[in-house]
């Protein structure tokens, strides 16, 4: 039954977009979908428009950085939700270090605006078509993208902590 649900979502998406969509369900009951970058917009639009599935609520959008995955260093995770069916769907898409570009979904969800700005701010992932892609949380003068794994957490100017303790 559960598998059917996942399969059903995949079929609906396939019918709407004509693209290959394999929806799976993970151990925690969440539907998961992995997409190439160029299919994100079409898929999210299809999800948004489909009245039966009702995945019309973008719960969350966040970036991820994993330097150990060559070619797939950057990931953007979308959580969409269907309030009527009480289901959630996680969509992941990967991009490489050289070209961290994703389509912006602000045209579908107004809420994506700040989330995408935040992701840009943290990872330097560019969202093409975003109306106003600026830093949001950090200072405009900042040049680095702080959530990338290589960026140090600590403030280099601190003076009241000892780094030698326990390998820090």
């Amino acid at each position, binding site marked *: 039954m559960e598998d059917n649900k996942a399969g059903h979502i995949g079929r609906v998406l396939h019918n709407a977009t004509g693209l290959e969509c394999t929806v799976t369900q993970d151990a925690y009951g969440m539907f998961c979908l992995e997409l190439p970058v160029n299919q994100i917009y079409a898929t999210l639009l299809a999800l948004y428009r489909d009245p039966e599935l009702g995945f019309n609520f973008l719960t969350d959008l966040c970036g991820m950085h994993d330097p150990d995955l060559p070619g797939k260093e950057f990931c953007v995770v979308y959580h969409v939700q269907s309030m009527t069916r009480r289901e959630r769907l996680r969509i992941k898409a990967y991009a490489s270090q050289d070209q961290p570009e994703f389509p912006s979904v602000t045209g579908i969800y107004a809420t994506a605006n700040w989330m995408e700005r935040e992701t840009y701010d943290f990872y330097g992932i560019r969202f093409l078509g975003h109306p106003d892609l600026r830093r949001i949380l950090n200072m405009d003068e900042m040049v680095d993208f702080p959530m990338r794994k290589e960026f140090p957490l600590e403030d280099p100017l601190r003076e009241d902590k000892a780094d030698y*303790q326990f390998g820090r």
Partner: protein
Amino acid sequence: MMQQAKTLTNRAKLMPRKPLTFSERIYLPAIFKGMGITLSHLFRKKATISYPDKVRPMSKVFRGLHVLKRDERGAERCTACGLCALACPAEAITMTAAERKPHEKQLYREEKYAAVYEINMLRCIFCGLCEEACPKAAIFLQNDVMAPPSFEREDFIYGKDRLVEPFQKN
């Protein structure tokens, strides 16, 4: 979409919006009612606890200022294992361990002890994780003492002189 949304659950309780009645439209009854409420408080017992003179009772488990405990013989319990420093999310604890000399046996309970033990009270967030992490029941957050404010930043590095509880002769 709203139609869909309205039937999400069967537990919805619509909060109706009543139009203003005439007596509400003319402001005054509500104003007098409000004034009545505030006036009644004029004669009520005041809730204020005049702090420096009276202290509000605190709970038994309140997490206040740290203390380094001694055991029943008066020896310091801390064995400088470093778990507290590790558990500290604010990284406020630093320590240097030292070997106990034979003649110091009554001073320190274990063979290893903290020669330097410092807590930066300005960093500390009083979360109590150090107390929880301590396997020797050495560090303890007192329930009746709060870290006092001070003028200088240096005053807040609490060394062993201020952390270890005073030696009491039984």
